[in-house]
């Protein structure tokens, strides 16, 4: 890749806050996003898991009412994050050539609320009551399409759908779009709004979710010996990525460089990670190679670290294989301990946090790490946030998903 790509705008709406500044402050302080769900369907269906990490600010509080009626909740959250990132980049109202602006937005599941609500409507009230907007609301590309309309982005609106790897994969797709030379700016990110009884029941039946119903705030505990599963979360993250040339020409503030990235697939099992982390290892190596970075350049990793008993170990194995003894010099943040697992938005929000960490030289804290698993001897940022050293360095954001998807992005300080 010949052109240098930089990040000039950030947006987020998460269980920690309704925007990037509030999310970032909470992430440095250490904030548990998971709470007991108050919806009547928890009791009605006797769900085995009664908590999740809902967004701190309801999208209806910041969007116009017709927008909330025509967009699925997942698109609503994506729109909130994208608008913040666009404004943060100083691009609101800017004169851009729309034919050189693209969108690359991710989701794991798409408009699951719309799909299931409209199925209920059909069964209870008949087909006439099914709203005509149902299909554009439930389709997984709903968010990327709506965001392309919002921004007048005509260089393509792509959608990464690779389960929990989707958010990072969207960034790598953005990188591909920008490296063609035909695109100057891409709105990249991911969104998810799947705290619905069906996915909750299904993930619980896979034994993937924590059952710590009596203490939701302590349930997401990556690397801890007592971790018992992930915590469902919702939210969105967005990053404005543009060519350095374009950013410099308009005098934009640059947070970090998107130095490289890679996706691989395990071809091992539809849900279980490769026990030796081979797919993750290859993704890490390729991401560093595409960033023209050596392992010694890496100082910080925002790990996938979902808090499942099986998942956290192979990720360590992969990091050890790639970094070797240098792994002792890498500080690892497992921010899902705070946000819960945002599925298709996870990699986007965690990329926002990785970029903030490099820009502010501060790694966010991992909460609930009371007894670190001896099988995972990482240098975990726990107790309090940690300062990163000055000087040029690389931060990594890794995401892995059902289907055997591995996606790794590498960011460089500027």
């Amino acid at each position: 890749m010949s052109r240098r790509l930089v990040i000039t705008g950030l947006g987020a709406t998460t269980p920690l806050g309704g925007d990037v500044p509030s999310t970032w402050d909470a992430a440095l302080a250490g904030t548990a996003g998971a709470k007991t769900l108050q919806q009547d369907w928890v009791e009605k269906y006797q769900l085995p898991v009664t908590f999740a990490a809902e967004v701190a600010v309801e999208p209806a509080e910041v969007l116009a009412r017709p927008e909330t009626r025509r967009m699925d909740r997942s698109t609503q959250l994506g729109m909130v994050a994208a608008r913040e990132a666009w404004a943060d980049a100083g691009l609101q109202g800017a004169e851009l050539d729309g034919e050189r602006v693209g969108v690359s937005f991710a989701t794991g599941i798409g408009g699951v609320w719309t799909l299931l609500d409209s199925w209920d409507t059909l069964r209870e009230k008949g087909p006439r009551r099914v709203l005509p907007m149902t299909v554009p609301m439930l389709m997984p590309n709903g968010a990327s399409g709506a965001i392309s309309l919002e921004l007048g982005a005509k260089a393509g609106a792509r959608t990464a759908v690779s389960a929990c790897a989707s958010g990072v994969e969207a960034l790598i797709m953005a990188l591909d779009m920008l490296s063609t030379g035909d695109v100057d700016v891409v709105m990249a990110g991911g969104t998810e709004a799947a705290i619905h009884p069906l996915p909750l029941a299904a993930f619980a039946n896979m034994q993937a979710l924590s059952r710590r119903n009596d203490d939701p705030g302590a349930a997401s505990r990556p690397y801890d010996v007592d971790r018992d599963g992930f915590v469902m979360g919702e939210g969105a993250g967005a990053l404005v990525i543009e060519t350095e040339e374009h950013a410099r020409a308009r005098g934009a503030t640059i947070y970090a460089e998107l130095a490289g990235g890679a996706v691989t697939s395990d071809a091992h099992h539809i849900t279980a990670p490769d026990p030796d982390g081979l797919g993750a290892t290859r993704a890490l190596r390729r991401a560093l190679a595409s960033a023209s970075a050596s392992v010694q350049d890496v100082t910080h990793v925002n790990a996938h670290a979902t808090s499942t008993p099986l998942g956290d170990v192979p990720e360590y194995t992969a990091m050890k294989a790639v970094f070797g003894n240098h792994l002792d010099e890498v500080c690892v943040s497992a921010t899902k301990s705070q946000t819960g697992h945002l599925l298709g938005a996870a990699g986007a929000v965690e990329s926002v946090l990785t970029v903030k960490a490099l820009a502010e030289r501060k790694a966010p804290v991992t909460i609930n790490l009371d007894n670190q698993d001896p099988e995972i001897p990482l240098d975990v940022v726990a107790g309090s946030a940690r300062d990163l050293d000055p000087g040029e360095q690389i931060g990594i954001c890794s995401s892995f998903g059902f289907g055997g998807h591995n996606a790794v992005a590498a960011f460089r300080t500027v």
Partner: protein
Amino acid sequence: MADKNAILAGLAEIVEEETGLETEEVQLEKSFTEDLDIDSISMMTIVVNAEEKFDVKIPDEEVKNLTTVGDAVEYIANAQG
């Protein structure tokens, strides 16, 4: 005979919900497409919601004849009997 003012008020609420237009802008002589800028998908949503609210049937082939808000109020009033 149904109260046409009540139908207009109810219809205006449905239009506001769908489009964000103020209810006062939804007047009898206004055209759905020309004046209120309502596209075909929004129009169908408004029709389906009106059917539920006023307990009437508005067949798809009738929808294209409902040019103005007044046309819709008239149709609903007649359908209610």
